[in-house]
């Protein structure tokens, strides 16, 4: 079946603009994660959705970052008033039920460049 998909694959924007990144998880997966990979850094957790529970937003770096998940499926990560330090690859992952032993399946990522 189809894996996790993300769009756009690349995004170039100007400092101060808002951007929206989209993630389509694997069908039937109730858990969805957003991570960020900055140049030379490991993956940094941003936000986690599990079913209808309130999302875990503990990894969001500032209030310019927000995310939503509609209908328990597609998720959108929004970055307002982008800054150059927001340039990174944004990865989305999903897992079946969010258990800590479960495999997380990753999308191809969105490469964001803020000029």
């Amino acid at each position, binding site marked *: 079946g189809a894996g996790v998909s993300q769009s756009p694959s690349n995004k170039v924007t100007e400092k101060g603009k808002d951007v929206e990144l989209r993630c389509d998880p694997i069908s039937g997966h109730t858990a969805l*994660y957003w*991570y960020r990979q900055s140049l030379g850094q490991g*993956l940094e957790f941003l936000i986690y959705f*599990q079913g209808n529970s309130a999302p875990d937003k503990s990894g969001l770096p500032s209030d310019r970052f927000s995310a939503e998940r509609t209908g328990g499926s597609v998720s959108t990560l929004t970055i307002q008033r982008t800054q150059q330090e927001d340039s990174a690859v944004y990865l989305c992952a999903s897992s079946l039920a969010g*258990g*800590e032993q479960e495999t*997380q399946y*990753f999308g191809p*990522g969105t490469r964001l460049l803020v000029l």
Partner: protein
Amino acid sequence: AQRVTQPEKLLSVFKGAPVELKCNYSYSGSPELFWYVQYSRQRLQLLLRHISRESIKGFTADLNKGETSFHLKKPFAQEEDSAMYYCALADTGRRALTFGSGTRLQVQP
């Protein structure tokens, strides 16, 4: 707070040589540890997890709680093993993964 450390950014070996990718962690609970791999132009994918005690593509990893390590090993490296390897720890409370900074493995012919 939990932390995962991969001390080597780059590990270069010749084909047929043994490989050990180091991973150390700090976590107050009982850790769930994973190795993820990213081959060139492919997405990040699970290689193995400690709970399964499995060998995947010839790789094994043993959890050593005394040394807080989860090193990835393979006795004979192959050129197709060249990739970026990430060690990760699952937080039982938060469910998200804490990743190390990654080690690039280069297997030369």
